[in-house]
C-alpha cells in the first residue's frame, strides 16, 4: 500500500535525524542503492549545520580543535534539531548544551566561549536604533534628572563570564596560539554591543554591571544612585553615575532619555 505524503516526510526526516527507519524501502535503487542515496542527504544535513556552527563559533572551534568540534557539532545537532526557519539561529542553545552535557560541562570555559561568541552574533544583527549624544544628555534639565530613565541600545548583550573567553576569542580571531583557560574568582560582567556596524565588548566592574542592568530594568537615575551606594560613597554617587552614563552615551549604548 502506498503511504501518504505526511508519513513519507516523517519517515524521511526520521532517517535524517536518526539514520534509521523505514525510509529505504521508499527509494528506487539503481546505479546507487537506496541507502547510499539517503546517506547523501543524511551527510549533507549534518555538514551544513556544522558549517553554520563553524561560522558562529570560531573561537570555540579553535579551543576544541576541528575534530572535537565536529564531534560536538554532531552531538548538538542530534540533541537540538533546528526549529527556526533560518539557520542563523541554529547555534543559540550551544552555550547551554555545553554547560549541561558531558563531557563538555567538565570544561566550563567552553560554555563561556560559546556564550561570548553568541552574544556577538546577536549584537551583529540586532535592531538599529537612535543613539543619544552627550549634547542630548547635557540638554536634560537638572530637575528632570532624578526621575530620568534610559533606553539602552537594542544591540546590547549583557553576560557574566567566569572564564577568560574574550582573551581566547581575541587570540582565535588573530589566528594566534590560545591562552590557557583561566578562571576568575567571581563571575565578571561583560557588555557586548554594536556601534555603527562595529561590534565592541568590554568587561564591567561590579557596580558598572549592576548599574547597566538597573538601567535596563527601567530604574530611574535616583533609584540607580541609591543602589550604587552599595559600592560608592553617597556623596560621590551622583557624579559617579553621571560619569558612567556619559561614557556609555559616548559608546553609543544609550538610545534615549525618557522623562
Amino acid at each position, binding site marked *: 500500500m*502506498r503511504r501518504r505524503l505526511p508519513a513519507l516526510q516523517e519517515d524521511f526526516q526520521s532517517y535524517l535525524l536518526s539514520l534509521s527507519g523505514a525510509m529505504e524501502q521508499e527509494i*528506487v535503487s539503481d546505479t546507487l542503492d537506496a541507502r547510499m542515496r539517503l546517506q547523501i542527504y543524511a551527510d549533507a544535513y549534518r555538514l551544513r549545520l556544522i558549517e553554520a556552527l563553524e561560522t558562529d563559533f570560531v573561537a570555540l572551534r579553535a579551543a576544541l580543535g576541528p575534530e572535537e568540534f565536529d564531534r560536538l557539532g554532531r552531538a548538538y545537532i542530534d540533541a537540538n534539531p533546528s526549529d527556526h526557519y533560518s539557520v542563523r539561529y541554529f547555534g543559540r542553545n550551544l552555550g547551554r548544551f555545553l554547560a549541561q552535557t558531558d563531557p563538555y560541562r567538565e570544561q566550563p570555559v567552553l560554555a563561556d566561549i560559546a556564550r561570548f561568541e553568541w552574544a556577538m552574533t546577536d549584537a551583529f544583527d540586532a535592531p538599529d536604533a537612535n543613539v543619544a549624544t552627550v549634547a542630548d544628555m547635557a540638554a536634560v534639565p537638572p530637575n528632570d534628572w532624578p526621575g530620568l530613565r534610559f533606553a539602552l541600545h537594542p544591540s546590547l548583550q549583557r553576560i557574566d563570564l567566569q572564564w577568560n573567553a574574550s582573551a581566547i576569542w581575541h587570540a582565535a580571531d588573530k589566528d594566534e596560539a590560545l591562552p590557557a583557560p583561566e578562571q576568575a574568582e567571581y563571575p565578571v560582567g561583560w557588555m557586548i554591543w554594536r556601534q555603527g556596524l562595529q561590534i565592541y565588548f568590554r568587561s564591567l566592574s561590579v557596580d558598572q554591571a549592576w548599574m547597566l542592568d538597573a538601567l535596563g530594568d527601567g530604574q530611574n537615575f535616583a533609584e540607580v544612585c541609591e543602589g550604587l551606594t552599595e559600592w560608592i560613597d553617597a556623596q560621590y554617587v551622583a557624579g559617579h553615575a553621571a560619569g558612567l552614563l556619559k561614557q556609555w552615551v559616548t559608546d553609543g549604548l544609550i538610545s534615549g532619555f525618557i522623562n
Partner: protein
Amino acid sequence: MTVSLVYPPIGFGLGLRASHYEDILNGPRRIDWFEILSENYMVPGGKPLHYLDRIRAEYPLVMHGVSLSIGSTDPLNRDYLRDLKKLAERVQPAWISDHLCWTGVAGKNMHDLLPLPYDGETLDHVASRIQHVQEFLGRRILLENVSSYLTYKRSEMTEWDFLRELCNRADCLILLDVNNIYVSSVNHGFDPIEYLDGVPADRVQQFHLAGHRNLETHIIDTHDEPVVDPVWDLYADALKRFGPVSTMIERDDNIPAFAELADELDHARHIAVETLGSGTHSRRRVVPA
C-alpha cells in the same frame, strides 16, 4: 496580442554575498542585478540590512528563499511568510523565488532542499499551498527545480511533467536551475534536453547557473566551483528554447573575488549573444568613462 505571463527580464545577475559589498558599491558596474538569499536579510538590523539598502538604491534585486518549504505537510510557516513579506516591502524585488521541495516536518527544519514525490497527491498539496502564498504576497512566485539524489518509488511522473502541471494549476512561474537539471540528469539518468523540452516556455522567468562536484558515481550540487562546460552547453540549449531569460550565477562557498565572478558572468553574456544574437538579451548599462 500576446500578454506575457512573466515579469520583464532584467539581464545578468549574481548572488549578493557579504564579502563583495564594498566592491559592488565602490567598483565598476559590471552586473545588472543581484539575487539576495532572503533569510540572510530577515534579521532585525545591523550590517546585513545596512548594505542591503545601499545596494538596493543602485541595483534591481530579486529575493530567493530557502525556507518556504512549499512541499512540506506541516502548515505554512506564518512567521516566515510575515517576515518574507516585510522584507519584500523593504526591497521591492523584481520577483520572489524559492524551491520546489520541502525542508522539514513536525516543526523541525533540516535546512536542506528535500525532494518531493511526483504524484497526484503532491501536486494537489503543493498547488494549493502556492496559491495561498501568492495570495498572501500579492504576486506570482517562482519555484526552482532542485538538484536531487533519489527517486521515490511512488513518483508517477517526471519532474518536468510535474512542474508543467504545477504551473497550470497554481499559476506560478519557474526559476530554472540549469546546473540542477544537469546534476539530476546524471544522478537519475535522464536526458536534460528532454527536461528542457518538457518545461513550459511561457513560465520560465529566471535561470540559475552554478558549479558542482562530480564524484563519478554521482554529482553533488555544491555551488563552490565555476560553472562546468556541460552546464554552459545546456545553458545555450536553454536559451534556444526559452529565449532571453534573466540569468544569474550562484556561488555560495569558496567565494572568489567579485571581479572573477563578474568575468564568469561575462561568459554567460557571451553565450547568450552567440546563441541569440546581440541586442536581444543584455540590459547592462554602459557607464561613460
